[in-house]
């Protein structure tokens, strides 16, 4: 399992060359609007825009497929629950359960929007190195402590995944098999406890090393950002497209699949 979101940030494309600060702001606006959409056709358009953006970044499909996989796992239940639980008229019955098209449309809308949002997020954070994205967040007035903690956590995640794999291997080689019983659960508790102790001790060592090298709560970086005309043109393009999507959604051409707030 490879989780590094910035694995393909070295690929050359106009999204990768985009100033991260402006990229985060304009695609962030796109994400926000996509979450508000109420009609399926417009949601599909926003999904197409997201697909085009991710296509421009040249990020390979298997990387994007990984995040899509999670969205499908999360949202698949809605296709089963919503059509059969939508209050009001049922179109027909499936093995005695009322099936309502409204519920089915609602599930499609939710799914399309979520897909568009995930693709746009991949485009933002998959196209710059993670530390550079974080420095950009700091320039965008994100609290310093938060940014520092995100950077630490991001580093630790990969260390801990390795640690978990090592410990699992050790347990398996001693004959441990996961079953649905008390013993497994108690062992899992001890597993998590051991993982905690090991991680904290490792971190304490790292932290003392950092202190002895003069760490005082700041990370210094040589990265500088310089927004050029091109960056603003790209931002303008995205913002215009997003506004067009929002307006099409609001002027009731299409029948909304959900009751909205505007």
């Amino acid at each position, binding site marked *: 399992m490879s989780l590094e979101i910035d694995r393909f940030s070295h690929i050359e494309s106009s999204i990768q060359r985009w100033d991260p600060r402006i990229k985060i702001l304009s695609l962030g606006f796109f994400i926000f609007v996509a979450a508000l959409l109420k009609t399926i056709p417009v949601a599909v358009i926003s999904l197409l825009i997201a697909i085009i953006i991710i296509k421009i970044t040249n990020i390979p499909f298997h990387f994007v497929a990984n995040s*899509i996989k999670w969205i499908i796992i999360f949202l698949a239940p809605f296709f089963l629950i919503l059509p059969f639980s939508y209050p009001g008229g049922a179109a027909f019955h499936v093995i005695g359960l009322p099936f309502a098209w409204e519920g089915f449309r609602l599930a499609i809308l*939710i799914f399309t929007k979520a897909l568009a949002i995930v693709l746009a997020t991949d485009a933002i954070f998959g196209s710059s190195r993670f530390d550079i994205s974080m420095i950009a967040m700091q320039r965008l007035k994100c609290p310093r402590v*938060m940014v520092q903690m995100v950077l630490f956590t991001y580093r630790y995640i990969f260390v801990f995944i390795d640690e978990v794999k090592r410990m699992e291997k050790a347990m398996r080689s001693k004959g441990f098999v996961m079953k649905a019983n008390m013993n497994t659960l108690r062992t899992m*508790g001890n597993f998590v406890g051991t993982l905690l102790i090991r991680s*904290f001790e490792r971190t304490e060592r*790292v932290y003392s090393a950092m202190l002895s090298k003069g760490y005082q709560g700041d990370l210094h970086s040589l990265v500088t950002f310089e927004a050029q005309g091109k960056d603003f043109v790209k931002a303008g393009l995205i913002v215009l497209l997003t506004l067009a999507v929002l307006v099409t959604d609001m002027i009731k051409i299409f029948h909304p699949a959900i009751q909205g*707030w505007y």
Partner: protein
Amino acid sequence: MHIADGILSVPVLAAGFGGTAILAAVTMRKMGHEEIPKVSVMSALFFVVNFIHIPIGPASIHLIMNGLAGIILGKRAFPAIMLGVILQAFLFGFGGVTVIGVNCVMLGGGALIAYFIWQLRHLFPLGDRLEMIFGALAGAAGILVSGVILALAVSLAGEEFWATADMVLVAHIPALIIEAIVVGACASFLKKTKPDLLAGQVRKRILKTS
């Protein structure tokens, strides 16, 4: 255990971000940079532990461990979980970006309540099993509070989601039981091996003998 993008209405999303901002401001007050690594460790662990799946019959369930974060970090559990949620949203759209606020309130709120319950153990002198019992209660409380907040948020999205909200609550029952046992075992393990990791220890007064 997460809610995904595109379901909740805008006021609920806004309330989530507002609640997160307030809770973050309260729980991160006076946080020195020496605390940053400890909190980061817990959020990385929270992130990784979410991948540990335990089989129940044909399905499997994953650990959430927000209660554990509460009994280890105390009120600093909130920023830790907030970071975990933010990274999960960014690294693979686990949940989603617009629902970060709601997910933080849901999981972090559970952690804070779990800490509160964990602290109640000082009122009950139960001896050896004290940590195990209150660890289990705290683990269960973390899931219970999160499940209720999640069901509330979903049902506020509209009448068509009420059945979904019911199912969310039912689905949390096995998670609650498993989490209670695992956190209870973990708390008693930590008490035996490295008790200073646990939050809210009463420091024994050193008596001066002159």
